[in-house]
């Protein structure tokens, strides 16, 4: 089947099997390997992307369900391939170690900050509950998200 998607602002028409998952379309057809697969039970959040503005686990979405829709992945977060403010905040706060979970956290946190630019610590933790990280113990990730990376909390 043919699936047409807009990914990080660019349109693509991809021919794929009806059982193809969105995460495989991104990784294998579009070579956007920044989105990772960490489980087979939709439990880890490593595959989180933003679909029409909402953070979703791309291993739970069929490619066909994304037809005609807009997807954002980690590769599109920064302007012109440079790092955006949340990505820089992750580096400043040591919010990644092995980095395998990182793109999922970045996308989940991006969706949160768009909706709620000044979240409390418990709101951040709640929003990231579906993303697992085995390395960091979460504190530095939470700190990065709380650091007001986009400056929207400025007076």
């Amino acid at each position, binding site marked *: 089947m043919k699936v047409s998607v807009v990914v990080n602002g660019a349109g693509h028409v991809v021919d794929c099997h009806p059982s193809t998952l969105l995460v495989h379309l991104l990784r294998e057809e579009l070579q956007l*390997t920044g989105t990772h697969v960490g489980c087979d039970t939709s*439990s880890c959040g490593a595959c989180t992307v933003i679909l029409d503005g909402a953070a979703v686990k791309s291993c739970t979405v069929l490619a066909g369900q994304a037809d005609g829709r807009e997807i954002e992945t980690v590769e599109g977060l*920064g302007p012109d391939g440079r790092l955006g403010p949340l*990505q820089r905040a992750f580096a400043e706060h*040591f919010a990644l170690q092995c980095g*395998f*979970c990182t793109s999922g956290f970045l996308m989940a946190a991006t969706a949160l900050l768009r909706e709620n630019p000044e979240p409390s610590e418990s709101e951040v933790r709640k929003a990231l*509950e579906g993303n697992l*990280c*085995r390395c960091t113990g979460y504190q530095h990730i939470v700190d990065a998200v709380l650091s007001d990376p986009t400056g929207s909390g400025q007076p």
Partner: protein
Amino acid sequence: MTSIGARLPRKEDPRILAGKGRYVDDLTVPHMVHASFVRSPFAHADITSVDLAGARETPGVVASYSGSESAAGMPLIPTAAADWAPPRTPLTGDRVLYVGEPVAMVLASDPRTAVNGAERVDVDYEPLPHVLDPWEALSPGAPLVHPDRGTNKIGEIHKVIGDPDDAFARAHHVVSRRLTVQRISASPMEPRAILAVPEPSTGHLTVWLSCQGPHTLRTWLAHIFELDESKLRIVAPDVGGGFGSKLNLYSDELAVIWAALELGVPVKWVETRTENFTAGVHARDQIHDAELALDSRGKILALRSHFVGDLGAYFHFFTPVVPDLTIDTLTGNYDIPSVDIKLEKVFTNKMSIEALRGSGRAEATFVQERLIEEAARELGIDPVEMRLRNLVAPDQLPYRTPFGLTYTGGDYPALLERAAELVGYQAVRTRQAEARKVGRHIGVGFATYNLLCGFSPSGHDWNPMKFFPGHESTLIRVDPQGKAVVYSGLCPQGQGSDTVVAQIVADQLQIPFDHITVTHGDTETIPFGGGTHGSRGAVVGGHAALVAAERVVEKARQVAAAMLEAAAQDIAYEDGVFTVVGSPETAVSWHEVAEEAHFLKRCGPMFEPGLEATAFYDPPDVNFAFGANAAVVEVDTETGKVKILDFVSVDDYGVGINPGIVDGQIHGGIAQGIGQALYEQVSHDESGQVPSASFSAYLLPSAMEVPRLTLDNMVSPSDTPLGVRGVGESGTLASPPAIANAVADALAPFGVRIDRTPLRPDVVWELMHPE
């Protein structure tokens, strides 16, 4: 200019944050085929037939192999830790010994087709009686995992030091418990992954492997397949966590390599999470019958523990020695004159036990700290005071443990007192009393740890492993611009050692941190390497970098001497400038020296061209890091749910090279300890199946379960040039007993015994309702 101690940003972050990390699953090569495995659904069974026809008829399937057909052509896999290992081949031919054991492999043009093909393989099994419980495995008449051995007992180590019998005979009080540290899983977020790329025309083979140390595995691979090591290249690209589980070459990974060599095409395999839980190694799984002999003031006279280590069915890399580490670390930071420790190691029909962050030592810490807590309670002594009476005091240092380990430096009582202060111990007691009046149950728990780390000097007792180096290497190559590329033998999986190594080198070469590139994880470019495990990154790998950098500076000094027409010993190097001692105006810069070292334009052939050096650093001894944790919890006695209200860790890891990295290591270790204390357990049902084989059943703590952690540190530099001790595993040791002790404290009014983890709501609820 000093980089050591600075919170410098990690070298790898910009790339990974941009989504440009390169994990094995991200790699593709032309003509690559994908593997999928057929695995045993039985804990113990004879394979009576394997029919590959269904797979072979599946469109897109390229090849399929069964262990029974191919076993003759497959090599036996040894262990690094003993001369004998139970026979194991990449695919099992005749009998399966655990659920998840690979019996057949299907290769196809894409991963989904490989899975479909594997689903169409027909295997007939004749189930055999199996044994899962280690005590049952030791009892007469138990089903035998390896019948030709005649017993499931692998071996026994018994150490009696001092006079424990006398101590127990004259003790004022004895506290005894059976304490269980459950089987857990490392669960790195990136499952195992491999891409084997053969080059049949030359006989070369490149293996991209998610691993913790490619050199050791290259030697093993050459040994197993009888290959020429010079034609093997192993590369660990970005590795998404390992924690000990990726030190191995597993059966299925070897099957992938075997198939790549057979077919002459690249073969890729990426493990599913379900497979990681059954066919990836497990850890811990010890049961201790432990007791302390105490005098009337609570001074510990002797420790006895007779314990069993359930090692599973086969030996992986370290399997048979993992529980050995528990023995010599059982006294921790405490001054205990007499010990009687017996370990029995047992085969069962389960996946193997292996190293996992804190392995051996985490089990020891749980046992000693749970026992001391119970002793304090039974004697009516405050648990902090009880510990202070028994901790090795600063004036006892250097302190030789009964097992012959020598502790130097540090102030264990001060670490504990600082943890008590930071957690607001007295205030928590008040709060606890208030809460109890309204039926709420708050508890506070403490634990200290002593992390034996920095594995391991060659020839040391802690390095019994064949083909497993205790040293580490670094090559530093300076280019004509004066910038350096550092080739480190470490193989980080998130530890940030590229940054740490760059900080060490920057200070020696006196060049900007940004002028240093660090590379690792490739046998083609790195001189040699022990890899990253056992909290050895800074203390072993860091020193290799230090010595190599010192050698580079020495060489640069010779070049500068030639340029300045002076003797090398008269050349000073400061702030990136070489001067002749006594005449500071006679100077050349680092950059000028680097250029001259390569082009010899100013002074001609007065020295060997080039500016590089290699160092192999073999540590003189193991190292120790130590600290104390305090946890405050609230237990909901209606639901059994444990909530961590506060968690404090005070650590002494010696000199910290990068505070951001060090804190992250401690946070991550504590989070794993919280998982072990409250949530995680690899469970086997009666048939030997693993119902916990998914993240929906095996619960890793999320950002909701790990509270904000309060860290503090004290610095007692180790007796090494850098003064570092080790930190990678620190968080995993004291956190499980601190939390268990807090739960025991909260539930003290109910007379509940906390003898095992995880303290999941259902477990706590059952403890509260014993009928």
